[in-house]
Each structure stands twice: as C-alpha cells, then as structure tokens.
C-alpha cells in the first residue's frame, strides 16, 4: 500500500512492490516544489541511495527523514487557507457536545477564539519559516495548544505574588542548615531575585498577551528548530529562568516522548535494565520492523505472574490490567482505555502521599511508573496516551490548597467524567449521527470488531431500519466472529466472510463502517490491520467509507505509513492455525530452516485519507481533512475538561 506515502495533491501514480534504483520515480509535485528542492521526496532518496529495495529509511535517521517527508507533504501549510474558514461551520456540532455541559461553553468559546487567533498567527508564520523539523515530535500542534494555556498560567500566577513570596520566605527560614549567610544578606538576595522574576514575568506577560506576539511564538517550538531568530532564543532563555518552571515542565511532559527504537543497541541496554520484563531476543523478526517493540506474550506471562508479589509498588488493579493486556484478555481501544483509567482510579483511591512529598509530584511519578509498566505489557494505543495526558494535566493542575482526600476525590471524578464524556457520551452521539446514514435496504460492511460500529448497527436495528450486515474478518484474531455472534443473537441478518473475499462481497455493499484506533492530523486512519485494504477496495468500488471514531482518539501526529509506528503481534499466532491439526506445515522445521523464516504479524495499518469519505465523531460528521481542526480546537478544552 504505497499510495499512502504520496501526498494528496499528487495524481494517482501508484508504485507497488519493489523499485529498481535506476528508475527513480519523479512524481510531479506541482504545489510543493519548494520544500521538495530542499528535502528530496521520500521515494527518491532511499531508492537512489539503494539502501534497501523497499523504500524505508533506516530507522536511526528517523527524525530527519520524517522531517523531510513532512516537508514534502503540504498538509498543514497548504490546507491552512482552506481550513480556517471552516472553523465557524463546526458550531452546530459543537453545540451537540456542549448541550451536555452548558456552563463551560462560554469559557470554551473564549478560548476557542483565542486559540484560533494565535494558531492563525502561527500558521502564517510557519508558512515562511521552516518548521517541519519539529513535526515528528508532535510539536506543531502542541505549541498552538499550549500557548494560551501558558498565558493563562502566567496570568493566574500574577494575582497572588504576595502569597507565594510568603511561602517562599517560610520555606527559606525553615531550612537553617543551608543558609550560612546572614539574614540581611538573604533578604537582599531574595529581593533581587524577586525583582528579576517580576521583570521577566512582566515581559513574558506582555509578549504573551499581545495578540500577534511573533517573537514569543518560535520559542514555543521545540529546540530542534535551528534557524529561529536569535532574539527569540534569548527571550526564551530569560523566560525559562524567570517564569515558573512548572509550565515548562508540563509542556515537556505533554510532548510524546520519542519512541524507543528497539534495534538501537545503545538505548536498548539501558531500557532492558530498567524494565520489569526481560526483553525477548529479536530473532526471526522481519528486518523492516525491528525498530518496533517485540511481542511479549507467551514467554513473559509466566515470568510476570511469578513476580506478582515482588512488584509491590504496582497497584494490584494496575497489575491486573497489565496482565490482561499481556495475555490478550482485553483488546479494543475503548475497553483498554477504560480499564486503564479505572485501574488508575482505584490506585488513586488507595494512594496516600508519603511524608515530605507533595501529592501532585509524587502521584505523577507514580502514574508514570504504572504507565511504563503497562507499556511493557503492551504498547499503549493513542487513545490511552491521550487519556494519560489528560490525567497528568489534571494532577498538575490541582490547587495546592486542596487536602489529600479532596484531591483524590477530584481526580476520581475527573476520570469518571473523562470516561463518561469522552467515551460513553461520545459513542452515543456517534450512534445518532451514524444512524442517519443508514437507510432501509442498505448493505453495510464492517471489518473486524469495533465496539462503536457494533453499537451503531444495533441502534439502527432498534430503530427498525431494514438492512443487512457483511462482517469481514481476518486471521489470526478472528474478532469478527465475536461481533457476529452478538449481532446474530440480536436478530440482524449477517453475511460472514474473510478478508480475502472482500472484492466479491463489495459489489452489493452500499456503506462501509469502520472503527479506528486513532486518527492522525493528516486524516490517516490508524486501525486494525486490514482496514486499509477494505477501505481501498471500497474506494475502488465507489462505496462510501464511514470511519467511526471518538474524538479523544485523534492524535496530532502526522503519519504517512504504518511502518514507523506499529505494533507487533504474536508471531506464532500466524504460523499456527488454531484448531486445525492438519495445517501444520511450519511445525516440524529444523532450527536451521527456521533461520530462513521471518514471521510478521502486524497489528495496525494506516489508511490514507483518500479512501475515507467521512469521519463520524462526537463533533459531527467531518471530512478527514478537518481532523487537525478538531485536534487543534478541542484539545485544550479536553485538557481543561
């Protein structure tokens, strides 16, 4: 599926399979000529270097290449003009959500306008500046989102300077050991520091609240950016010293950490020592995917189980969820996210701050420990990453005056609210929207088992619509059978088929409903492997493809292929057919023969946005090009929830 690597503007020249180095593909790129001169198009560079027959850059230079690639794709820059006017047109769908929370809508509006303004300015700038290098770290959207927040934080700091000073004084006086200077000297030092701080604060405030604020914008971007004006960096430095560090720290926290590359020797060693589970050897894994974390089931489960009582610091609820991830008892984006949040909720309930520590800091690190444990059990899905980010921001945002029990109840209710608003209510809204697209006599096709799609089908059935369902399934998960069972039990008429028969059943299908694990800013749908094929076939047959996905699963990352980020499944699952003793051709290979065999069980793939007609989300039905708008406009609201 090479097509996903092409930009949307490019005419359909599809290169499938292997390329020969002496016929480099010169794709016409009418609109993005300038960036492509700086950074050669992706398809050229590896082919001309003849690194590998398949056009994958070596993962070590991932960030560079990604930058180059994203520069070549004119998504954010070019769409800017087309997209900004559409902000207004989303108001109807906004009201859908805000019906549920009327008091917040006003605040949301204010911030929306501010955010739009600032991001507008930013985009205008970024068209001229070379911003693309910050893309892989997810920086560009974050910075737009974070900006108003940090301003708010600065503003919130200002009204109570007296109090914080008093606290500081107390703190300094309570540490007599450290202070060898006299009281007067200390006093003088403090005064000077305070003055410097106030000055820098004022400066930051001025630059922050000023509408255009061109000089403060670049410093929000990660330091990767090289050709930023020197003035800005100096201001940034002064701000970094002066302004409260928590803002900055928080920003750092919110950046998704660079993914570990598992074929990187130097990093692997350290991670290995730190991890609870021992990493299995990267043997017989497909070369192209060695950078992905290896699948851990099988050998790891007994090991982890035997360590049950030794890992005391992991809360039992978290431990249980981790085991369920590892054993594959629990799958599906929503379910995993809910289970994780509920486990965290329980952990928070049982939490008590150790002496001489503050709740917000200690709890954040504790949650971080839980998360890294869960990652070891199974890589997190995007939705879970978003949920964790939400929780951490809630913890960081807790007022210091709150008592421990109050803070805990606040956090628990926050988590409940997140589950209810972002998942349960979102699903209900999606049901209503999607059901309008189902008409009598329709033949709906779905792939795998998506809980939203299932609910849509059942809901439409309850509404009395007459339709048939085609459930397409694939090995080795065979999740479709679970869905099928529940549908058939409810009295829907279903057709069940495997993915390899997709082109035959597509003739009679009138709509395709798909679930998604995540949707990226460029409209790429990241979903269970096989979804891309279904969407492509549907596209070829001119069948509309509706992707149903809650907005909390949207991610600001831009991803063009499913190779950089993916998840590996159990390789044995595809080499063995469950319940078929007669299909055992791979069983009795000798060890030497097995060296020639590499098993690849990918879990996800990326569907390019070309194949998607509409995305049904809790903010309404949107085209895939509007995903960045949702991410940009609603992310902060959702962090503020």
């Amino acid at each position: 599926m090479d097509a996903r690597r092409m930009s949307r503007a490019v005419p359909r020249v599809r290169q499938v399979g292997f390329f020969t180095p002496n016929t480099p593909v010169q794709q016409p790129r009418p609109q993005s000529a300038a960036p492509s001169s700086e950074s050669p198009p992706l398809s050229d560079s590896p082919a001309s270097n003849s690194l590998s027959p398949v056009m994958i850059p070596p993962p070590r230079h991932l960030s560079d290449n990604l930058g180059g690639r994203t520069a070549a794709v004119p998504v954010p820059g070019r769409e800017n003009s087309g997209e900004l006017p559409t902000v207004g047109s989303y108001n109807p769908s906004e009201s859908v959500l805000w019906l549920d929370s009327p008091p917040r809508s006003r605040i949301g509006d204010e911030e929306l306008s501010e955010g739009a303004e600032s991001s507008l300015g930013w985009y205008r700038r970024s068209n001229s500046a070379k911003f693309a290098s910050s893309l892989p770290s997810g920086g560009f959207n974050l910075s737009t989102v974070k900006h108003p927040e940090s301003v708010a934080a600065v503003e919130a700091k200002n009204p109570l300077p007296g109090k914080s000073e008093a606290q500081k004084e107390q703190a300094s006086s309570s540490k007599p050991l450290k202070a060898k200077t006299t009281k007067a000297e200390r006093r003088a030092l403090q005064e000077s520091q305070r003055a410097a701080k106030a000055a820098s604060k004022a400066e930051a405030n001025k630059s922050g609240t000023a509408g255009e604020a061109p000089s403060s914008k670049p410093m929000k971007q990660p330091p990767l950016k090289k050709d930023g004006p020197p003035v800005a960096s100096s201001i940034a430095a002064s701000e970094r010293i002066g302004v409260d560090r928590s803002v900055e720290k928080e920003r750092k926290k919110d950046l998704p950490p660079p993914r570990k590359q598992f074929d990187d020797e130097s990093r692997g060693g350290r991670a290995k020592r730190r991890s609870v589970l021992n990493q299995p050897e990267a043997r017989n894994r497909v070369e192209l995917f060695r950078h992905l974390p290896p699948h851990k089931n099988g050998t790891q489960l007994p090991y982890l189980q035997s360590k049950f009582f030794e890992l005391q610091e992991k809360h039992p609820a978290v431990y249980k969820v981790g085991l369920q991830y590892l054993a594959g008892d629990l799958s599906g984006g929503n379910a995993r996210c809910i289970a994780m949040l509920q486990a965290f909720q329980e952990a928070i309930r049982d939490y008590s701050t150790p002496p001489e520590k503050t709740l917000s800091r200690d709890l954040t690190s504790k949650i971080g420990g839980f998360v890294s444990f869960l990652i070891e059990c199974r890589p997190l899905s995007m939705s879970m990453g978003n949920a964790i980010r939400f929780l951490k921001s809630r913890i960081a945002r807790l007022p210091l005056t709150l008592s421990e029990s109050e803070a805990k109840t606040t956090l628990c209710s926050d988590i409940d609210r997140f589950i209810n608003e972002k998942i349960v209510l979102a699903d209900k809204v999606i049901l209503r929207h999607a059901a309008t697209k189902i008409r009598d006599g329709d033949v709906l096709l779905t792939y795998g088992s998506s809980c939203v799609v299932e609910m849509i089908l059942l809901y439409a059935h309850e509404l009395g619509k007459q339709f048939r369902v085609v459930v397409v399934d694939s090995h080795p998960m065979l999740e479709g059978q679970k869905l099928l069972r529940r549908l058939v039990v409810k009295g829907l008429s279903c057709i069940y088929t495997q993915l390899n028969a997709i082109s035959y059943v597509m003739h009679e299908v009138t709509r395709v409903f798909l679930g998604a694990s995540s949707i990226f800013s460029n409209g790429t749908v990241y979903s269970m492997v096989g979804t891309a094929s279904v969407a492509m076939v549907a596209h070829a047959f001119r069948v509309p493809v509706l992707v149903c996905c809650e907005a909390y699963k949207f991610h600001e990352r831009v991803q063009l292929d499913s190779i950089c980020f993916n998840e590996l499944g159990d390789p044995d699952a595809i080499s063995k057919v469950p319940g078929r003793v007669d299909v055992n051709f791979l069983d009795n290979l000798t060890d030497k023969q097995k060296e020639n065999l590499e098993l690849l069980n990918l879990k996800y793939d990326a569907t390019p946005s070309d194949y998607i007609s509409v995305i049904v989300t809790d903010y309404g039905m949107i085209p895939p090009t509007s995903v960045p708008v949702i991410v940009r406009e609603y992310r902060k609201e959702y962090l503020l929830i």
Partner: protein
Amino acid sequence: MDFQVVVLAGGNSKNLTPLVSKELPKPLLPVANCPVLNYVLHQLEQSNLKDLIVVVEGEDAALLVGAWISGTFIDRLHVEIAAVPEDIGTAGALRAISHHLTAKDILVVSGDLVSDVPPGALAATHRRHDAAVTTMLCSIPVSGPLESGSSGGKDKAKKLGRYNIIGLDPSKQFLLHIATEIEKDARISKRILHAVGQMEMRSDLMDAHMYAFKRSVLQEVLDIKDTFQSLKEDVLPYLVRSQLKSEALLNRTPQGEENSNEKVSSQNNQAFISRILANASTPSFHGLYSENPDGSSSTRKTHKCCVYIASSSSYCVRLNSIQAFMDINRDVTGDADHLLSPNNIIGPSPKLGTKTTVGPNCRLGEGSEMGDKCQVKRSIIGRHCRIGSHVKAVNSVVMNHVTIGDGCIIQGSVICSNVQLQERVVLKDCQVGAGFVVTAGSEYKAESLAKKEK
C-alpha cells in the same frame, strides 16, 4: 497486593505416625534437617509475603510451632499463630479464623507443601481471571524409592487414592471437575459440559493444596455449608460444581454494588461501560452461558474456578505420607537441592572415624559423630547423633540425638529423634518412633516401631 496468606500447618497427622508425635508435630518434622514448614515459609518470604497467619491444630503444637517460628524468622516475617482444635478439617480451620480475614483475596497454602512454584503465579492467575477460586495443579511426582522399592501392598493402595480426576476446559484455564478418589462413576454436571462443549479429563495432575480464594466467596461458603470439613474434598468440589449456578451467596456482592449507584443515568453509563469491557474481552464459557438467547446478560450468576498448572520442570510435592516423606528427603538432597534455604547450612562438620565413607546426596547435621568404617549413602543424619563403627545407612533418614550401636544396617528407614539402636540391629523399610529402643541383634522388615502410648 491485597492478599492474605493462611498457612494450614496441621498438627498430628495419622498418615505420618510414628514419625510425628506430641513432641514433634507435623509442621516441625525435619526434612533434610529442616522443619517442613520452613520450606513453605521460605518460599513465601521470597515472594515478599511477610504477613502470614499460620494455623496449627492443637494448642500444644501451636506453642511448639510458634516458638520455632519466632526463633527462626525473628524479624523477617510477621506471623500470627492461630491454634484451632484438632479434627475440624481444613475448612473448619479456616472457619475458625474467618474473622481474621480482611483482604480481598486469600491465599491458602498447606504447610506440608515442598515446592518451588512461586505463589505469585497462582495469585496473578487468580487476579487476571477475577476468579472465585484458583487452585494450583502440579504433575504427580515420581514416587517410590530408587532401588529395592518394595513398598507394601497397603501402601500402593494408598498411593492410588492420591490421584485426582481433574476436568479442564480446552484452554486449560478453568477447572470443570475435580474428584479426589477414583470412584466407579464420576458425576459431571450436564450444564457445564453443555456450556463448555469439550472437557479434558486428566489423572496425571495433583491438587497441590495451594488455593487462592475470593474472600467473600470463601466466607459465604463456610458460613452456609457448615458441614464442610475439608477444603479439598468439600469446598473446592462444591465451588466447581456450582460454577454455572452460583447460588444466593455469590449474588450478594454485585447487588450491593448496584444499590450504591443511585442515579439512573450513572447506572446506565456503568452498564454501557461494562458492556464495552465485556465485549472487548475474550469471553469464557461462563460469559457465554450467562448470556440469554437474546443476547442480554441475564440474571444467571456464575463464578470462575481457575487452575494454575505448574510447569513440569518445577518441583512440587506434599508431605502427606511416609512414602512422600522419603521421596522429599531424597529429592531435596538430590535433584531439588535448590529448595534448601540458606539457613540450613551445615554447622561444624561432623567427626568421622577412619575409613568412613559418606556418599553423595547425603546430609550430616552438626555435632554428629561416626565411628570407623561406616558407610552412608543417600541418607540424612541429624544433629548430635552418635553412630558406632561398621554401620551402614542407605536411603534412610536419621533424626537428631540418635544413638546407633556398632554393626547396624539401616535401609530405607526413618529413625526418629532420641532413638537408641543397640548393636547389630538390621532395619529395612522401617519407621522407628521417637524415643524407642531397639534391642541388640533384632531384625525388622517393613514395620513401624513406636513406644506405646502411656
């Protein structure tokens, strides 16, 4: 981890007479010069389980066990000793200490288990499935002496009885049937068979008597069925039998939860969430069964009975017969010597006479003295024994403070503490109770000698 550990140490065991006595209750029976209870406690300690409840039958035994534990594990373990009356069975013992149980799950371990299977594995399986009860199964150990194994016919019949008939589901995660004795006919619930579709019957597995119970379930069962005596023979089969029709006892908890959610809307959301979770997880047959034909989850209550099957490479034996005692002694010094805890280091090496040979897989306690030209093979000799010259000991266990006269031949026997063997005694496959005096020149074969009770 919200687990409470109960060690059922037992007291006097009829199976083990004459080895155990009032002075030496079963938990303190030395295996390779180290009380058998030590193996369990050591294993638990290694798993970071430091708060234990040790249940001992009989006040006197409890005092002895308590003294030993506090002497051995001074600071390392926090142990509560509970004395229960004798002959109330394992279930009765748990019933007696029921009010001490507070944690969410209870890990019940038999005190006579010599095993290297980490208890955490069982607990993790239990948690993962959210089971009502999880039991550990292990493969049946190789039994019988290595050579000249002529155990009596009576013993063989006993060994047969130890086999369990165990029914598992195809994924080997759930327990569908368990019977301790071989009966002519086994009763299997039609309902379970219908729900599972396929059942695997095994007789090569043994219930290792290590269970994880959900506390609420355990207490309810113990409360309602007050005739239940044994965990293994009453409680576990009952739970397995009733897993698809759990009675009122198991329905209470969820009802209580539901009542706490007062708002209708939040209850709605809860149902929604639980449906998402249920749909996403791999359904076990319990879930499929409790589903009504129309797909809605019904009022049929089920609970899960899970198993953890120890891998065949791990060591797991219960000391519940004399034969098992011999086997464990043999294995602990031989193949499974990693089980010996570090506090079992041999003291100052015993004094050996000239031309005395001590073969491999032997263990000599501190302060023992041996005369000239003795032969010791695959045997364990306790502390402060005095052994004369020309003594031959093969496959035997000699406990502490034993005096053995010149020219004795001991084969496959157990000699308890303070026994006096006078000269030229020949013992084969015998058990000699504590304090017994064997007169000079006597020969015994496959007998059990003990002092008469006063």
